[in-house]
C-alpha cells in the first residue's frame, strides 16, 4: 500500500482542439465561472472543428498525447454552417479506425459544446481526463512499432 502511494500518480497528456466560436468560448466560460478541470488538458484554438485535420490528431498521439478531444459547436450551430458536420464524419471514421487497430476508444472523443456551456465543458474535460487516466499511458499508439 505504502509503495503504491509513493508511486507517482499518472497524469495523462491531453490535447483539446476547440473551435473558436462555441467550445473555446465555452472553455472561457468554464474559466470565468471557476469550474475547474485538470491541468492535464491543453487547448489548441482552431477556427472550426472542421479545421481539425486527422493529421493533427495522429501527430499528437505520435508525440505522446494520451488522449485527444475535439470540441465544436452543436450540430446546426456551426459558425460556418457546416464545418462540424464534416468534422463529425471525419472523426467517426477516424476513431472507428483507431479502435479497429486496437487503440482504446476512450482516448479519442468529440464533444459539442456551446459558448453557454461552461459547465458542460468542465464536466466533459473532467470525465475525459478520468477516462484517459484509467486507460493509463498511451503505450499502444506509441508502441505500434513497425520494427519489432
Amino acid at each position, binding site marked *: 500500500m505504502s509503495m503504491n502511494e509513493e508511486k507517482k500518480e499518472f497524469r495523462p*497528456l491531453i*490535447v483539446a482542439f476547440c473551435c*473558436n*466560436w*462555441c467550445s*473555446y*468560448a465555452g*472553455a*472561457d466560460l*468554464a*474559466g*470565468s465561472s*471557476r*469550474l*475547474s*478541470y485538470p*491541468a492535464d488538458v*491543453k*487547448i*489548441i*484554438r*482552431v*477556427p*472550426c472543428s*472542421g*479545421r*481539425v*485535420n*486527422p*493529421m*493533427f490528431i495522429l*501527430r*499528437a498521439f505520435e*508525440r*505522446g*498525447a494520451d488522449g485527444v478531444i475535439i470540441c465544436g*459547436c452543436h450540430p*446546426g*450551430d*456551426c*459558425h*460556418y*454552417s*457546416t*464545418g462540424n458536420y*464534416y*468534422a463529425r464524419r*471525419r472523426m467517426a471514421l477516424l476513431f472507428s479506425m483507431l479502435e479497429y487497430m486496437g487503440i482504446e476508444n476512450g482516448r479519442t472523443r468529440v464533444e459539442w459544446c*456551446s*459558448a*453557454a*456551456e461552461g459547465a458542460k465543458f*468542465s464536466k466533459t474535460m473532467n470525465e475525459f481526463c478520468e477516462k484517459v487516466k484509467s486507460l493509463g499511458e498511451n503505450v499502444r499508439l506509441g508502441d505500434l512499432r513497425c520494427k519489432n
Partner: protein
Amino acid sequence: MQKIGVFVCHCGTNIAATVDVKKVVELVRYEPGVVFADDYMYMCSEAGQEKIIEAIKEYGLTGLVICSCSPRMHEKTFRACAEKAGLNPYMVEVANIREQCSWIHKDKEEATKKAVILARAAIAKVNLNTPLQEGESPVTKRALVIGGGIAGIQTALDIADAGYEVDIVEKEPSIGGRMSQFDKTFPTLDCASCILTPKMVEVNQHPNITLYTYSEVEKVSGYVGNFDVDIRKKARSVDFGKCTGCGECQTKGPLGKIGNIPSEFDRGLKNRPAIYMPFAQAVPAVPVIDRENCTYFKTGKCGVCAKICPSKAVDYEQQDEIVTVKYGAIVVATGFDIINLDKYGEYAYNECPDVITSIELERLMNAAGPTGGHLERMSDHKAPKEIVFIQCVGSRCDDDKGKPYCSKVCCMYTAKHAMLIKDHWPDTNITVFYIDVRTPGKNFDEFYRRAVEQYHVNYIKGQVGKVKPQPDGSIIVQAADLLDGKQINKKCDMVVLAAAIEPNPGVRKIATMLTASIDNNNFLTEAHAKLRPVESPTAGIFLSGMAQGPKDIPETVSQAGAAAVKVVGLLAKDKLKTNPCTAQCDTLLCNGCSTCANVCPYGAITYEDVQVNDHGLRETRRVAQVNVALCQGCGACTSACPSGAMDLQGFSNRQITTEVDAICR
C-alpha cells in the same frame, strides 16, 4: 528567425495568485526565437501597452506572445498595440493563462507548469506567423428585421430614422406581435394598443421601411455586410393594391362575422372567419385568406368574399412569391410564446375552461377582446368572484416539464392583473400563490406593494400542488401557506396560470439559417453576455427583444434601440475590413480534385486552368482559387484536401502541428 517578445500579465491577482508569473518569464526566456520576456500587472492597460510598444522598438521585435486572458477578450487590444508600434497585428499570439489556467487550477506549481506549456505553444506558433493584410468588402446599406413585434418595430424605426432602409419580415398577417394582445402595461398601466398602434402606423408610413407581413425568411447566404436573403411572401389571396381595408369580406362570409376558426390572436377564446385581419388595428389593414380553413380552397365552392368585395381585391389565384434582397445586417426579433401546459396535469388547464393562462386573461380584459372587456368565466359567462393566480408555472423548473429560468415578467403582470381586476370589479377576491416575488426595476416593487397595500391582494408563499375542478363549477386550489405553516384548500371560480415564456419555436430554424448560436433554452446567444448583449457571435447578426432572453417591454424597447445603433454603426461604414485569415491554395500541390470546393460553405473556391512552373516542368493545371472576399476562414477545405495544398493563414497546418508538438514536448 523571429525576434519574439513574451509578455506575461498578472491580471492583478487573477493570474498572479495561481501562476508564478516571474517563473513563467524565466522559463520562456530561452525558448527558440525569444529575445525578450517580461511581466506586468495589467498588460492590457495603457501602461502595459506602452511597455509592449517600447520593447518592440528597443529589441526590434518581429513577433509577440502575450500570456494573459482569453484571446477572445484582448487579442484585438494587443494586435492594435502591435500595429501602433509598426508591427503587423497578425504577428501577435495570445496564450490564455487566465480562463484556461489560473482561474481553473488551484495548485500553483501545476498552474505555473501549464502556463509555461501554453506560452511555449504560442511561441512555437509565432515563430511560423507571417504578416497578414486585412482585405475589404463592401456593405449593403439595408437592414433586415425578422419579427414585427414591439422589438422589431422599435429596431426598424430607429434604423429608419437614422436614414437607412430597413425591411421587416413578419410571419403573421399583421405586425404588432404579443404586445398588441395585451390590455394594459406595467408599471404605469397605459393601454397597450394606445402606445403601440401609433408605432405600427409609423412603421407602415415610414419611407425607409418596407413591410413583408405574412412572410417568412426562407434562405440566408452571404456574410456580414453582404447577406442575400430569400423571403417567401405567402399568398395573401387579397390584392394589396386594391384592398381598402373596409372589412366587408370579414362580416359577410359563410358564417358572418363570427366564423368558426379559433382566433390565434384571441388565443382561441373567440372564433374568426377564414378571411380575416387578426385585429381591428392590424397593419397592414389588409385581410388574408387562411387557405387551410377556407371553404373555397377546400371545396372549390363559396367564393362569397370575392363577390362582396367592393374593390374586387380578393384573388384566389395568388401564388407564394419569393423575393431575394441584399442586406448588410440582420436583426432577430422573433419574440416569445408561452409553453405548452399539457405536461402540467395538476393545474387542470386542459380539463377546465376556467383555468386560463395570463395571455388569455389579457384578452378577456381587453375591450376589443372576446368578451368586450367584461371579465367572465368561459364556462358559464358569470363574473368570477374569487380568482387565484399561480406563479412560476413551468418557470424555474429543473425537471423535464418546464424551463430552468425565471420568466421575469410574471410577477409584475400578475400584480397588474390583480389591480386592474380590483379596479373594475372591487368585490373580487384575489389570491396570488407565489414562490418568490421578484420585482427589480424602476417603480416595480412599489407597484407590487400597491397591489398588497392598496388593493389588498392576498399574496401567499407556497406553490400550488393541485387544481381540482368541482362538479358545481367551482375550483378548489390545494396549496400550502409556507409562512403560516398550514395547508389550504382554496375555493375559487377562476384560476390564472403564469405560464413560463419560451422563445418563439420558429427561432431555431432561423438561427440555423443565420448560423447564429442558440442556448439550451433556444434563446439566442450574445457575443458577450455583458459587453456585447445585442450582438450575436456571428458578425452582422443582432438581437432584439425576447429572442435573446426574458424581458419586459421597457427593456425590450431599450434593447431594440441598442440593436438599431449597432446596425447603424455597421451600415454607416462603406467598407468592412475582412478577416485576413483566409484559405490559400498552393498551386504546385493542388490536384484540382474539387474536394475542397465541395465542402466550402461560402462557395469561395473556384477552379481555373493556370500555367505553373513545377520545378522546371511547365504545364497548364486545373487548380483551386480562393475568393478571399467570400472566404470566412473556417478551414473546412484544409482538412478535406488530401495533398495539403489548401492551407489557412493564421491557422496553418504547420502552425497547428507545431503547437501540438510544443504541448506534447
